[in-house]
């Protein structure tokens, strides 16, 4: 019996087990549009659950995609009761940390407090490469902790609109890296714990070992969750061109080496020129020929993946209405013959 995988994300959209969904790929292939589309479809299909869409890309686009402003605190999307969005702002998060540190150190007279005044900590650490990934990861840990403690808003599924490939891979490596670092630090702290505690000294006298163990436990929890295919999956977004496909292949291999589940690919910006009799210039035909060539290769290469083929629309896919219209094909699949008119039906956003 031939087992053929559906070329849509119906199973994922209606999944009741997934807690973490990452949407990633090369720059400019439609990650934000895809992540917004997946979120909208999931929220519509499961109205009793709460969904959170987080952007971990420092160059945030969620606000532009929905046409409304989102910030570092989760806020519901206008027109949807169970979908919230958040754009992690590294500088704001660092400023919060800085303010907290200043408050803990007390005012004046203390050398460390003077150093931290005026956001010095934020300035120093804000430009460290990888800080964005680290802060996004901290946000994930905070979210898990809040869920366990029953604090704040509870979200059943978190969808990540990630940064271009390299940054995302760094983000996903963090649990492993942190775990190893904490292991080493644990060995050292075990030997020099009391001495380390005395360095922090003064009124604080932090229990370094305690905090480290807590962090280690959280990181282990995240590692477990990220490698459980029932809880976490990665949706790769690409376009039908060599560079994008090659990067997608590398991304998939890298994700597999992290034991992360990846079984869905969204191929965006397809022209389907064969089925468009009205608007079918020579350029479109040439590009479609090239895209078709790679589409056949994708089908051969990823035969056990859900490969969703999405069209290039005439207008921008911005605003909730346009995203709703566009995102339906993630669940049903796009048929150019019957669904072709959607390309010209998107409303123009002001």
């Amino acid at each position: 019996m031939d087992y053929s995988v559906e070329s849509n994300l119906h199973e994922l959209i209606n999944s009741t087990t997934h807690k973490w969904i990452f949407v990633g790929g090369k720059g400019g292939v439609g990650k934000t549009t895809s992540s917004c589309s997946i979120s909208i479809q999931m929220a519509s299909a499961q109205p009793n659950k709460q969904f959170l869409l987080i952007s971990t890309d420092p160059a945030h686009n969620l606000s532009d995609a929905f046409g409304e402003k989102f910030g570092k605190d989760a806020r519901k999307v206008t027109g949807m009761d169970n979908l919230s969005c958040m754009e992690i702002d590294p500088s704001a998060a660092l400023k919060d940390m800085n303010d907290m540190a200043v408050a803990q150190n007390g005012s004046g007279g203390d050398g460390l407090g003077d150093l931290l005044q005026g956001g010095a900590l934020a300035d120093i650490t804000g430009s460290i490469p990888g800080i964005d990934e680290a802060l996004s990861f901290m946000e994930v840990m905070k979210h898990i902790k809040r869920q366990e403690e029953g604090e704040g808003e509870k979200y059943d599924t978190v969808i990540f609109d990630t940064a271009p490939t390299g940054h995302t891979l760094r983000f996903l490596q963090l649990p492993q890296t942190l775990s190893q670092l904490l292991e080493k630090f644990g060995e050292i702290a075990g030997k020099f714990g009391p001495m380390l505690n005395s360095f922090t000294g003064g009124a604080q006298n932090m229990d370094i070992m305690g905090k480290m163990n807590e962090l280690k436990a959280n990181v282990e929890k995240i590692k477990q969750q990220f490698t459980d295919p029932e809880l976490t999956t990665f949706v790769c977004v690409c376009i039908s061109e060599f560079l994008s496909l090659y990067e997608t292949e590398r991304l998939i291999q890298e994700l597999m080496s992290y034991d992360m589940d990846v079984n869905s690919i969204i191929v965006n910006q397809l022209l389907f020129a064969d089925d468009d009799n009205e608007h079918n210039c020579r350029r479109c035909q040439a590009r479609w020929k090239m895209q078709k060539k790679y589409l056949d290769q994708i089908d051969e290469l990823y035969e056990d993946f859900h490969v969703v083929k999405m069209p290039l629309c005439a207008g921008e896919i911005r605003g909730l209405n346009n995203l709703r219209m566009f995102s339906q094909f993630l669940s049903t699949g796009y048929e150019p013959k019957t669904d072709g008119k959607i390309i010209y039906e998107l409303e123009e956003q002001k």
Partner: protein
Amino acid sequence: MVDSIVLISLVLVVTLRVLQWVSHYKDSVVDAIWSKPGALRLRELSKKLHSLQTQQRSISAQDEYAKWTKLNRQIAQLDKQVKAAQEELKQMRQAGEKSLSRVRLLTLTAPLLLLRFWKGKTVVYSVPQGMFPRLIETILSQGWAALAMAPVRYIWAPGPLKPLQLETPVCLGIWIWALTRVLNTVEFVVRSLVA
């Protein structure tokens, strides 16, 4: 008896030196004895990897992307296996070299050392007396220990030395030392001329 001792010493010194000169064959010897399976496996994997890489280079990535990518995956897999096999072979070789060093120590170095201590004073041949200064003649006949013991003898047994013999014997210890130095010098000259 003396001839056999000298012959054995000569064989041991020369064999040790030859082994040192042909140390680049050490890997082959170690591979042949200790790590043959590992070396064969590595050779097989490297051959397979090379074949896949040749195959990949012969096709266009853009025209046959799927085939190219499948080859790429196989190459990545084989690469890992080759690295693992190299690491395994390295460890086998290290273990083999350690065993080889022990064998060399037991069969060559230790016997030579034993010979030098046990039969070090055996006379190999003699030189006419007066050919070298007295101190040198003492060293030739009694070895380097005589030099070390000279101050002690001066304190314990002062006075004129016993009359010397007509010929100065050259002991085995000094002879081995001289042979080693000659071989070192020849090696140095040859290396300087070849380099």
